[in-house]
């Protein structure tokens, strides 16, 4: 037995925690990437905002003139007026868990609350790189503790399924955006000098999705852009690949009551992803495909909301 309202809040709780973690990871990997690149190459801080959509770009330039590291990290991490920032996501996660505490183990609330208080008290520390790294590590650990304790302490029943649903939808969305970032960075780094750093770029993309080790074990060859794309889109075992996220979503949906036509919709989406041929696509085509994928994920969210969250009329 589960309230529709609770289902909705747990779903969003999971999305926001996932978004918090992904944002932390993304910024920390990007910092890392910059340190590997030759001095004087300012490789695309602004792209971190571009992958979050046109609204994010407009919002950023409302409050900032320069797209430099300082402004962009502040915008992405601590700007409470930007709903996509790490701090906004974490605050939203806390609001959602505050209203669903009764469904979750006590530790879950305490974990999110502690993390929120930590972030709130340390917003200033992100100004310099060293303390920013510490801040991001703390957040990443906190998100993992949260995910781990739910997995270990909570029955894997309907409430948990809505958490998994939210987490994987958000994760798939973020993976597609990180792939988008890769193609953006590549398209602007056509100079020969930068070309030699392509491998480093792809390594960082894999790291952003915690996939570097798994990629090496899986491919057992040097890192190639096409292979990385393939792996991150289509591998059925890598937790952050699009395909794996869709399998998780499909798994949850099939076990939830009243799933209507959602399982069929999901099969279509899985087939669509599997049909992407990364070896045959050009850079712009890839960007089109990723855009399309993000739209399809957006539609999937709408269908989930219609199915379980919207208030049913009185019969």
């Amino acid at each position: 037995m589960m309230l529709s309202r609770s289902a909705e809040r747990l779903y969003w709780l999971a999305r926001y925690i996932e978004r918090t973690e992904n944002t932390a990871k993304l910024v920390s990997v990007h910092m890392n990437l910059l340190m590997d690149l030759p001095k004087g190459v300012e490789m695309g801080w602004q792209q971190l905002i571009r992958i979050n959509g046109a609204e994010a770009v407009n919002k950023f330039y409302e409050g900032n003139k320069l797209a430099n590291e300082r402004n962009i990290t502040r915008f992405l991490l601590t700007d409470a007026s930007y709903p996509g920032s790490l701090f906004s996501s974490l605050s939203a996660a806390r609001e959602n868990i505050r209203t669903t505490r009764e469904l979750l183990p006590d530790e879950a609330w305490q974990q999110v609350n502690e993390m929120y208080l930590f972030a709130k008290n340390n917003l200033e520390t992100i100004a310099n790189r060293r303390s920013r790294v510490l801040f991001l590590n703390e957040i990443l650990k906190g998100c993992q503790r949260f995910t781990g304790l739910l997995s270990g302490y909570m029955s894997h029943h309907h409430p948990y399924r809505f958490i998994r649903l939210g987490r994987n939808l958000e994760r798939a969305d973020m993976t597609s955006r990180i792939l988008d970032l890769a193609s953006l960075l590549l398209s602007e780094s056509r100079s020969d000098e930068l070309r030699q750093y392509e491998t480093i770029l792809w390594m960082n993309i894999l790291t952003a999705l915690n996939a570097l080790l798994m990629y090496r074990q899986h491919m057992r060859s040097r890192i190639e852009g096409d292979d990385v794309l393939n792996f991150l889109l289509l591998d059925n075992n890598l937790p952050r690949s699009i395909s794996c996220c869709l399998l998780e979503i499909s798994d949850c949906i099939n076990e939830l009551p009243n799933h209507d036509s959602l399982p069929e919709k999901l099969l279509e989406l899985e087939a669509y992803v599997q049909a992407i041929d990364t070896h045959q696509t050009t850079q712009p085509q890839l960007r089109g495909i990723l855009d399309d994928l993000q739209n399809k994920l957006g539609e999937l969210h709408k269908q989930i909301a219609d199915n379980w969250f919207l208030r049913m009329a009185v019969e």
Partner: protein
Amino acid sequence: MKSIWENYKTDIAYDELMFSEFQPRPISHSLCQYLNSLKKNDIDKRKMAAELAIMEMGITFTVYSDEGNIDRAWPFDIIPRIIDAKEWRIIEKGLKQRLTALNCFISDVYDQQHFIKEGKIPSETINTSKNFRKECIGMKPSHNVWANICGTDLVRDKDGIMYVLEDNLRVPSGVSYMLENRVITKRVFPELLQDINILPIDDYPTQLQDMLSSIAPLPNNKPRIVVLTPGIYNSAYFEHAYLAQQIGAQLVEGSDLVVKQDDCVYMRTIEGLEKVDVIYRRIDDDFLDPEVFRKDSSLGVPGLMRAWKAGNVALANAPGAGVADDKVVYAYVPEMIRYYLNEEPILPNVPTYLCSNKEDLDYVLEHLAELVVKPANESGGYGMLVGPHSTAKAVEAFRKVIQADPRNYIGQPTLSISTAPTLCKGKLEPRHIDLRPFILQGENTFVTAGGLTRVALKKGSLVVNSSQGGGSKDTWIINREEK
């Protein structure tokens, strides 16, 4: 090194723990010994540990202000308040007696009204009570109990006697803080709790669950219980969520529930509509059902009263129970105990002057500067006058307020309510306290071992409400004989 007890004053009022600066009462002997064994910065560390625990556990209450709703950490004093189990057993008996009589009275008010007909209380007092709901006449809730959950406020005067200050029979709050206070104390003073025999309090959720199950409309091993909250912006939302979690109930808002044509209550779930048997409602009568009470309420459930009257759902507390939670009706409780139970009241009332009586009104107006005057139907310490602590101007302003609506005011002597040592800037100072035990009544009656001790943190203040700068303490009922 200066003692934390230096200049501790026990002449302000009855002090719960100390005879004098140097001499603890027998019940607080072990505690004082322990506190004296700690270094000063040790005590500060414990206090910080408690504050950290409160932040992390997210124990909060919401305060409304101009800047929006603020979630404030629960102010907690780490020094516990102690009551001897011998005394407590008498108080417990007195509380059960009191609530039993109050429930007899509410049943009577909505039925034959013998108490009124026999002239024990003027009928206007009932008819003009804001919380008398004529819609409830003729209803018979399970076990004839209307007030299932009651929080009764007790204070000790300088004579050492515990008086009943008021009975909260509508939606009393605070029990979650009582429970959490003990959790924090266990964290902060683990050594101490090992050595002292303190009655446990953590069975409250089980008792609450049993009581709620016992009032289900149909005999049912597993009735569907929900906690109905006005939502996140209510000052007691933390408690609603906490209790729902503790008793394994769904926490619902009005919009999660729907009453269908069959006059049954359902909740909207991911599997469709599911029937609800028992509602522990934390919404005032006024907002419960826009079809019957306030039309503009968006917090309630249209048709809820219909379902309740049809006997398809139990509401705790029953609508209309607040008729006995009127400070004028309060004055008649000792008489109710004699009338319905044929017993003498175990716990005394505070002497009360009813401004609806001409004589009493004159007395109140003449002695305004010495008395406490309260509105009959407010809670949270709002809208009251504490004569000795008010300016002459405020007293005069209040005089007009009373004269405009005498039915709605009562006067009481300003009690010298007891104090207990409270940690203030690294030193112990006496602060005024009260006690709110919680009483559950369904098939059986249960009283918490102790209750929520609230403390007025401001020096000299008598107002203990959290919304007005009050804090709280853990409350220990200590069994000395068994040591």
